[in-house]
């Protein structure tokens, strides 16, 4: 077990290092110069050179990579070229938009999908099951940004119940903030709910076939009791895994929705940073997000390994 832990930790560290190196190398190929964007069309060559020195862009690539690793290790994440403030600050400013948005979306998706999935499994083959499965097929086929657009057309432009876009900031109060996040959260949640409902349904169906559920039924437990006491709790392991995956996907995957609703979240920060060639911000965010997913995978592996020693070499 100890050897396994050491091995996996080593792999984790190497994965993170590999991710950082890949991002760094890829971004070196990106054409364009942040200094040229900062100084505009009248900038002279000597002015550009002065700004390169100031930003540290005149150093060789490997030195900049090492300096960046140091910044990652210390948590300052380096200094943004465009904004001239620590990247950690920029990211902290965007989290109050991206995290609640992803959280509300996952919450909506879960509260919608799990009851639907369980109900469908309980009445497998019935009309309700068929309708729900057909609905989830359509849900999976709707691109979230189109759904967002339709929600804007209907709820914001036609009915004027909710704002079409923008984010007033939490300082304006909880309600205006939630109102601004509601439509984008629904747009994100519906396609995810469709997937989650299907996963829930098949997981519950699988556990319903399992020996212990059959045994419980044989012992005289009612169908409903067997479903709620045995099948559903045991089916939650794959469901929770998918929810976890969806949450980490949503934090990074809201770029397009943030564009539809012009929300100042992490996705737009990265988008703007790429436009401005504020490469250090891009590097930081991609590595942070990749690091989150790698770490979650690592934890999941550990949990599974704890549950079943044979899975150690998955």
């Amino acid at each position, binding site marked *: 077990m100890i050897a396994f832990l050491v091995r996996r930790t080593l792999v984790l560290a190497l994965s993170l290092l590999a991710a950082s190196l890949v991002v760094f190398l890829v971004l070196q190929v990106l054409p364009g110069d942040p200094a040229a964007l900062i100084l505009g069309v009248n900038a*002279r060559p000597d002015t550009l050179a*002065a700004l390169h020195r100031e930003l540290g862009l005149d150093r060789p690539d490997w030195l900049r990579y090492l300096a960046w690793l140091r910044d990652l290790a210390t948590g300052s994440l380096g200094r943004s070229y465009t904004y*001239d403030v620590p990247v950690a600050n920029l990211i902290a400013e965007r989290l109050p938009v991206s995290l609640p948005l992803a959280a509300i979306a996952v919450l909506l998706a879960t509260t919608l999908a799990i009851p639907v999935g369980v109900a469908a499994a309980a009445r497998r083959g019935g009309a309700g099951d068929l309708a729900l499965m057909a609905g989830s097929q359509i849900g999976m086929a709707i691109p979230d940004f189109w759904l967002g657009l339709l929600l804007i057309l209907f709820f914001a432009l036609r009915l004027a119940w909710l704002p079409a876009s923008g984010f007033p900031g939490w300082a304006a109060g909880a309600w205006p903030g939630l109102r601004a996040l509601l439509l984008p959260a629904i747009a994100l949640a519906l396609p995810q709910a469709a997937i989650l409902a299907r996963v829930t349904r098949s997981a519950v169906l699988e556990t319903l076939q399992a020996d212990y559920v059959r045994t419980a039924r044989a012992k005289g437990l009612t169908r409903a009791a067997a479903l709620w006491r045995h099948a559903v709790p045991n089916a939650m392991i794959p469901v929770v895994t998918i929810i976890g995956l969806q949450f980490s996907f949503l934090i990074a995957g809201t770029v397009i929705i943030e564009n539809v609703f*012009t929300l100042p979240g992490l996705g737009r920060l990265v988008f703007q940073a790429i*436009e401005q060639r504020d490469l250090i911000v891009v590097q930081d965010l991609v590595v942070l997000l990749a690091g989150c997913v790698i770490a979650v995978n690592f934890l999941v592996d550990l949990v599974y390994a704890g549950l079943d020693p044979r899975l150690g070499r998955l």
Partner: protein
Amino acid sequence: MVRLFALALFAALLPGLAAADPAKDTLSLGMVLEPPVLDPTANAAAAISEIVYANVFEGLVRIDSAGRVQPALAQSWTISPDGLTYTFHLRHDVTFSDGTKFDCAIVQFSYGRAAAPDSINPQKQFFLPITSTTCPDPYTAVVTMKEPRSNFLFDMGWADAVMVAPNSEPTNKTHPIGTGPFLFQRWLRGDRVELVRNPHYWGRPAKLKSVTFRFIADPSAATDALLAGDLDAFPLFPAPEAVARFKSDPRFHVAIGTTEGKTILALNNTRKPFTDLRVRRALAYAIDRKALIEGAMSGYGTPIGSHYVPIDPGYIDLTGLYPYDPAKARTLLAAAGVKPGTTLTLTLPPPPYARRGGEIIAAMLQQVGLNVKLIPIEWAQWLDQVFKRSDFDMTIVAHVEPRDLDIYARPHYYFEYHSAAYDKLYAEYASARGDAEKLTLVKALQRKLAEDEPNVFLFALPKIGVWNAKLHGLWADDPLPVNDVTDVYWAP
């Protein structure tokens, strides 16, 4: 992560800001882009001067709403007959908002910093002709030049030439300290910058108590915010297609003005077939400017016939030189030996005028037998590929720098126009001393460009301002990219 989330939720529960009081002396003004920093002497982004120019930072002179040079921190000046020495008489009673006294040493510091070897001033070329700035007494600044510059005072009115103090210079990017009628209050990144009235301002105090600049990139969000009253004004409204609904609403005033944005179809003058004057003229005949403005800008924008806009002194209308005439364009192309079906590339930076305009121009050039391949790119790539390396056939771009006829006289500029006759004319204009002489020359320059048609001149970008009908004092035109709110007030 969990802790941060808890923080976010906590922030969500804080009470909202107090509602505006009935006697309105606050202003909430919308802008499309957020500035990256707030120091106009260290970054070229127009969004910076749109907040701080005249409101927070002031120069020795300033530009007014009609594009004229006016006194600011210098109450008067004299120019020596040879045009080489400027003597500025400074105001005595000026302090920066942190208490630092303004005097000639500040002028010396500001101009010296802009011209220094490690300067990152985006307009460093303005300061290079200065040989020295001396202080015979604390309130007199004598600037000596290498050669006469007819535009020097106008240049010193730009946001890049404002006065900054040595002690606040390092932090101006995030917390600007200037001499203006407003003080920087705070910056909520991604959302707004707030300014408040400066109680110790040297001049006439501002009428507004506070001004909030809000950043709303999305056109439909901008429309909503105005309609809902969240914004009082959007001086550079981004959605020409939505203007009609404000025009019909008596609560709003719509001001259609002009900016300095000379939108051109730039041609690579060293690349075939653009080396041939007949081809460049053919392109000018092939483009229906009126339809272009209609399609790309919903009808807002003024056609131009040279690299100069109607709000600048000495403007002449040269749009009649190449009226829309596809038949003539085809004849000229045939005469130049350009075969129908020739493929040319058109590189398009991100703004809507370029992306929308590009699609329309491609269709128009198709009509005269040219195949146009559209290549949309980001600004970073445009600057690198088109601007720095001149690797392009055609591109659409708006030159927003005021009175920038000099770019056609530069030895290497991305469109590579070279004309000894133009260079000579420009040199005369740059060193002209009398106003009459300057006006004659600026007209000759416009005419020369229109004749040579190095680029196809399309239209001046409009300034579409939408604001509350009770609001007064905002600029209708934009001789500089600024939102001067020093004289803005609410009608009772």
